[in-house]
């Protein structure tokens, strides 16, 4: 089943948000897969921060609380500390990002995923996240402020 994609246009930039995902305020998407959550940078986050040169998730086995650093992403412009959108344990990291960090930019919701976590409390985790429509509204405000800056 093809996920509906919400789109936001600001100037010449087009941002996409699959409707079936959840999103944190920090712009990290979450796909729940049973008791697990696959995470990555939203299209807005990756476009805003530029070409990813290094993407380094915490190693497998690392326990993180909601908001703890779960990855470091270094772009041409900035070094980002990625706050975990859920609490849990890192059970899988995307090793394809080592040779090909540009996957985060080219396919942020597909091959550019960062890590998979075993989630502690799935219901609480969902409750703390935004739907695609709500996140789009937030991204719109942020994108317009960015363009004005």
């Amino acid at each position, binding site marked *: 089943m093809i996920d509906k994609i919400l*789109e936001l*246009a*600001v*100037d*010449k*930039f*087009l941002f996409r948000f699959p409707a079936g995902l959840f999103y944190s305020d920090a712009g990290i998407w979450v796909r729940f897969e049973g008791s697990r959550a696959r995470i990555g940078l939203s299209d807005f986050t990756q476009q805003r921060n530029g070409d990813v040169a290094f993407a380094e998730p915490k190693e497998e086995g690392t326990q993180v609380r909601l908001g703890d650093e779960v990855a470091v992403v270094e772009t041409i412009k900035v070094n980002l500390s990625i706050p975990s959108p859920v609490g849990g344990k890192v059970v899988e990291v995307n090793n394809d990002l080592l040779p090909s960090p540009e996957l985060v930019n080219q396919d942020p919701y597909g091959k550019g995923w960062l890590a998979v976590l075993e989630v502690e409390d799935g219901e609480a985790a969902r409750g703390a996240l935004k739907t695609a429509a709500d996140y789009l509204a937030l991204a719109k405000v942020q994108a317009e402020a960015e363009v*004005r*800056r």
Partner: protein
Amino acid sequence: MPNLPRKKVGLISCSGEELPEGTVTRRAVRKVLETLRPDDTVTLCLPLFLAGGEGERAFARYYPTIAVDGCNKRCAALATEKYSAKPAASIVVTDVAKESGCGAIGTARRLNEKGQRLAETVAEKIVEETDRLLKKKPRAAGRASGREKR
């Protein structure tokens, strides 16, 4: 018809490595974007446009564009028309240089002082066209719109 944001003018300049006038186009466009009309303009990247960049081509389809070319080969103007829509205005730096009688302007790699001044003149022409396309009252081209853009 997509839900379109506020109207802005797209500036598309040639890549311009072969002539110093090409470098003038880059300086002029960046000056307008960053300082003179940061709220009213966006740049469209010509290489990306040519390679199929959907954001650039879509923008040029729905919004007015100004093509700024170094010479009469007019790569930026022709590419915009070919892949999107005819630009609303077209500026050719060799024509502006002839009008202003500025003489030698340096190299494609490094403009001299005359080249820098020519870039300022071209930037002013871009601003005039931008204001015309957005139906704004003419203001002194050297006056920024209030905010510099990063």
